[in-house]
């Protein structure tokens, strides 16, 4: 015999609506609602703020259940970061912001224009390199991305850089040849530096719906994603699919893009993130 539901049904409905509208997805939302309803029979949740506390706790638990990735001991002193993701998510912009941040911290680094395909992609990242005050490794248009990547790793080692940020072309995870191309890029890096790429960041648009989980799954499979960047969180979308990605794939949310300017990248803060969903 189960005890009485300890939370008012109307309050739960409100939470459910907020979670669904934030793209947490129907399955995970149902799980959260279910655990709220039954977790501690006997205690009554009387009002909205009490319930919010419980939901917040539940969501933060999901987001931080991912074991913090052990910082791969950087053998050469060079941290190689690879940015991946589907088209238009914000990779190039994020590459620029990250380079600027680390340059501002006094680190020495390079950017690599590994998108050799898209119209004016190199021109775009060139502007960002300038804004960040960081040099850019680039090849002629249409070059093999693996070749530019190889050269950039060489250059970063030769110049004793602290970081190398590689921006790749957007690609739909359903396009096998492009996913294999990405796999090759990772191999090329690894051949040159065994522990690299030290970070593979999936850049995901906060407006992405449930397809985001499948995207993350594929990029994890082909490129070994180590962390998530949720971009465009300055908009009204809440990027709730990040919860499903954390839960199902063990990929932790690490950065949040909050605008188109060079300073608009912040470290992921679970409290701020969850507050953003419930305000």
């Amino acid at each position, binding site marked *: 015999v189960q005890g009485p539901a300890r939370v008012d049904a109307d309050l739960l409905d409100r939470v459910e609506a907020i979670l669904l509208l934030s*793209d947490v997805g129907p399955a995970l939302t149902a799980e959260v609602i279910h655990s709220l309803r039954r977790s501690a029979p006997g205690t009554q949740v009387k009002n909205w703020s009490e319930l919010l506390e419980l939901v917040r706790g539940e969501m933060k638990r999901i987001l931080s259940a991912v074991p913090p990735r052990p910082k791969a001991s950087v053998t050469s002193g060079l941290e190689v970061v690879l940015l991946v993701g589907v088209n*238009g998510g914000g990779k190039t912009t994020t590459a620029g912001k990250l380079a600027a941040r680390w340059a501002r911290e006094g680190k020495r680094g390079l950017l690599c224009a590994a998108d050799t395909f898209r119209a004016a992609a190199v021109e775009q990242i060139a502007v960002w390199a300038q804004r960040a005050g960081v040099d850019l490794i680039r090849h002629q248009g249409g070059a093999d991305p693996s070749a530019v990547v190889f050269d950039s790793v060489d250059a970063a080692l030769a110049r004793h850089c602290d970081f190398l940020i590689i921006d790749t072309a957007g690609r739909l995870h359903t396009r096998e040849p492009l996913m294999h191309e990405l796999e090759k890029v990772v191999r090329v890096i690894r051949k040159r530096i065994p522990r690299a790429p030290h970070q593979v960041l999936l850049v995901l648009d906060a407006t992405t719906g449930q*397809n985001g989980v499948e995207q993350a799954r594929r990029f994890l499979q082909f490129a070994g994603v180590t962390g998530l960047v949720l971009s465009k969180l300055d908009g009204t979308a809440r990027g709730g699919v990040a919860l499903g990605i954390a839960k199902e794939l063990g990929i932790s949310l690490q950065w949040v893009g909050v605008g188109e300017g060079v300073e608009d990248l912040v470290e992921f803060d679970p409290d701020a993130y969850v507050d953003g969903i419930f305000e």
Partner: protein
Amino acid sequence: MALLEADVNVQVAQQFLSRVRERAIGDEVLKSLTPGQHLVGIVREELEALLKGPDQKLKISAMPPTTLVLCGLQGSGKTTTAGKLGWLLKERGNLPLLTSVDVHRPAAREQLATVARAAQVRCFEEAGEDPVDLAARSVYAARQTGCDFLIVDSAGRLQIDQKLMEELARVVERVQPTEILYVADAMSGQDAVRSALEFHRRVNLTGIVLTKLDGDARGGAALSVRSITGVPIKFAGMGERPEDLEPFYPDRMASRILG
């Protein structure tokens, strides 16, 4: 649940299901020999009916050039779509001129110029810092060079960005476009409705282009945006090349949403 998994907006899904329920009762589904199939049939028909629009073709202006403005959130595929529309018009014998009023994104205007070259269509490449002025000068250039279409690519913007939404309204006011196309990413989730509604409120959209349909997103946002704004979906982006634009097929979209 399936509709929500397909990213159909929560309210839209509820409204849709109650319509289906009414029809099912009216249709006496329970009396049918195959009630399950019958119900799926109703769902599919209702979905198609909702997705279909009265005018899915591009409107033409009485006075050339016919001006189309592309707008939408950051990264949705506007610049690429501008090239595709240029290609499509050129293929059917028109003489389009592409122009970008995106003075914000790094190398945005270069991107459109490159895309135009790939599509083998003309691009307005004069320098400029003000979107409204650039737009006006493009209209003039189109007339002067006998172009019958002007495709205006605009900067991606958040619907809550007052300044940029006003900028868009001013561009529209200045060029009086025949079509204002909202370019939306097919993988968008619940928030798609919110942004589309606000764009519609500000500049009166005449059509929607759904991009990146060559992916495997179910595309429920299509249903949501179409049913809430009432704006017809005119085109589907199916890839990154100039030729990768198709007319929107409601029946194909319905099957896709249903998975």
